[in-house]
């Protein structure tokens, strides 16, 4: 029982990383933009989020630094770099009309480069490890609910013991769900992704919607990278562990059928697959084979989701296609 609870808690921690990545990409894809650069965006978010918190602490001194401020700076720094990446992507695909797939791949190459460069450069410049002080690290990983709630047997661990990012992610998923299904602007956004020519005829500004959705989506995905570095990786730059996470997030979008609420349990499920080899020993299964489990499951999910022919479960109709008014 304790093992199982520990497994769930660890799954939620890793799942939170995937949740932000997935939610950001859902928003982007709803506008019809297929941004394959999530991997690069999450790298950049991780490096810049860590850098933001680290240099804040360095500027004011370890004693005077305020945990909440560091947290906000990390979030803002990650969001800003992710938004910048979304802006680059939108400019090249929407304004300059380049192919979305290749632009996304270019963004991945660029972003992993920027992330690693930043991470390594900070390390070289500061001589040795770039790590936050323990006080500050605490803020990123400690439960936000009072200890009394956490101490409730079983339920306390499962519901109240997580770091702040999980609850932020949950709120974000709810807000996105509400926005996409209940507001006029959300309806417009979906119409842009489904049929831009119809939306254009109705007087919706396609360019603005595509730009904003991609920029905000990029920012949200980047927070995922920051969450990985500050929680799972222990506030140290670690590119090895982040490799492949962004791509899993892109796959999760398909798994969740472009629905923000599905992203919550979907990402926790995949979080479990990612960390299971550390927590749950299966006799006779070599670790290295165990580690590829999430990727095998992703392949199976991809195949299964392509086999079903349900109209409700399809991607936005114009996903991956650019819209040119004069080429209708």
């Amino acid at each position, binding site marked *: 029982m304790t093992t199982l609870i520990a497994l769930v808690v660890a799954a939620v921690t890793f799942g939170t990383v995937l949740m932000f990545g997935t939610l950001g990409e859902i928003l982007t894809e709803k506008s019809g933009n297929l941004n394959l650069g999530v991997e690069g965006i999450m790298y950049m978010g991780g490096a810049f989020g860590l850098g933001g918190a680290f240099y804040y602490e360095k500027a004011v001194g370890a004693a005077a630094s305020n945990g909440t401020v560091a947290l906000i700076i990390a979030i803002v720094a990650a969001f800003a770099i992710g938004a910048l990446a979304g802006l680059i992507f939108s400019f*090249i695909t929407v304004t300059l009309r*380049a192919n979305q797939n290749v632009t996304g791949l270019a*963004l991945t*190459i660029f972003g992993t*480069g920027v992330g690693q*460069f930043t991470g390594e450069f900070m390390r070289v410049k500061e001589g040795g490890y770039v790590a936050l002080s323990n006080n500050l690290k605490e803020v990123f990983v400690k439960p936000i609910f009072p200890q009394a709630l956490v101490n409730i047997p079983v339920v306390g661990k499962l519901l109240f013991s997580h770091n702040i990012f999980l609850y932020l992610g949950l709120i974000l998923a709810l807000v996105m769900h509400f926005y996409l299904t209940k507001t006029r602007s959300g309806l417009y956004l979906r119409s842009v992704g489904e049929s831009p020519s119809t939306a254009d005829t109705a007087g919706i500004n396609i360019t603005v919607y595509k730009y904003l959705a991609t920029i905000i989506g990029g920012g949200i995905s980047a927070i995922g990278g920051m969450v990985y570095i500050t929680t799972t990786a222990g506030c140290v730059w670690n590119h090895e562990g982040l490799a492949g996470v962004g791509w899993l997030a892109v796959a999760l979008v398909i798994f969740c059928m472009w629905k923000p609420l599905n992203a919550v349990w979907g990402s926790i499920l995949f979080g479990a697959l990612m960390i299971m080899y550390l927590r749950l020993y299966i006799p006779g299964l070599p670790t290295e084979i165990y580690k590829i489990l999430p990727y095998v499951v992703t392949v199976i999910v991809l195949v299964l989701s*392509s086999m079903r022919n349900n109209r409700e479960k399809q991607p936005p109709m114009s996903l991956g296609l650019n819209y040119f008014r004069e080429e209708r």
Partner: protein
Amino acid sequence: MSKEKRSPMIHLAKRSEIDPKAAWAIRFGSVIVALILGMIPVMITGNNPIEAYGIIIKGSLSKPMYIKQTLKVAIPLLGCALAIAPCFKMRFWNIGAEGQITAGAIAASYFALYWSDKLPHIVLLVVMFLSAIVVGGIWGLIPAFFKAKWNTNETLFTLMMNYIIIGIVAYLQGGPWEGRKGSQIIPMFAKNARLPEVFGVHCGWIIVLVLTLLMHIYMNYTKHGFEVAVIGDSSNTARYAGMNVGSIMMRTMFLSGAICGIVGFITVSGANHTLYSGVANGVGFTSITVAWLSQLNCFAMIIISMVLAILTKGSNTLQTKLAVPASISGIVTGILLFCMLGCEFFINYEIKIRRNKEAKV
């Protein structure tokens, strides 16, 4: 002047035709822009960008040994870009080259490890070569099969196949194929499983140059190449013309995987003389850049793969000399791609600026 009558300051017009020379001039210009933008991260580290580019060139080309090392980087890049070219031409986004290289490398390594004492040199190399083709091809065929049958997303599928096969190598490395117990290393290949050297570099360079010529002919002068091009432009047109899009897709992906497999064979047999999980070393991704920067033109790929090899090799020197992280090559590669993608717009469209004289009339 009333608001309704004002025509926009700038408007776009699609160019009907452009002089190929002008098109290449625009592309060349965008490369220059990219190299200038690439200076920014160097300046952030507090170094002189001109000096940095100098070190990159010197560190990759100034000595025969450096040139050999740079060539060793360029060979798999070129081979892999050739493999990706027909897929991208077909708008099939194969980003699984990394895994297909690894699959080919596993097959070749199996024969190198367990058959080297039973087969003579040339026969062994041929067997390794053929097995790499088959296994690499099959690894590429699997996603294509599902794409053809159920339209499964090939981008993610091919990518996941990378992680799976790399995990398998990691398993072999620490398990069945491990050399000394606990070393996590597969033993070095015997002498007769290694590619011979020609002019001081393993003869893989001859193989990829031959492949370049063959791929150029395949893409431009054969029925297969034509079919690939038609599908890339419009798969509906291809269907209407009676082509079996699914089987063409599978055939092309088998071919692509097979060429990646050859690259894997060259890498283990010519360069590394052993197998480890990082055998593909990011080549599968960088070669996408090579293929796209050269506009899927096979001969341009030779030059572009050399340029990127210089960048990669030179960045390592940069790291040791100026303490600029070697990952700068990723940044510059990304910027190059961005500029190249963006510049196509200026090739396809003309920006017309409204002249005031017309407006006044």
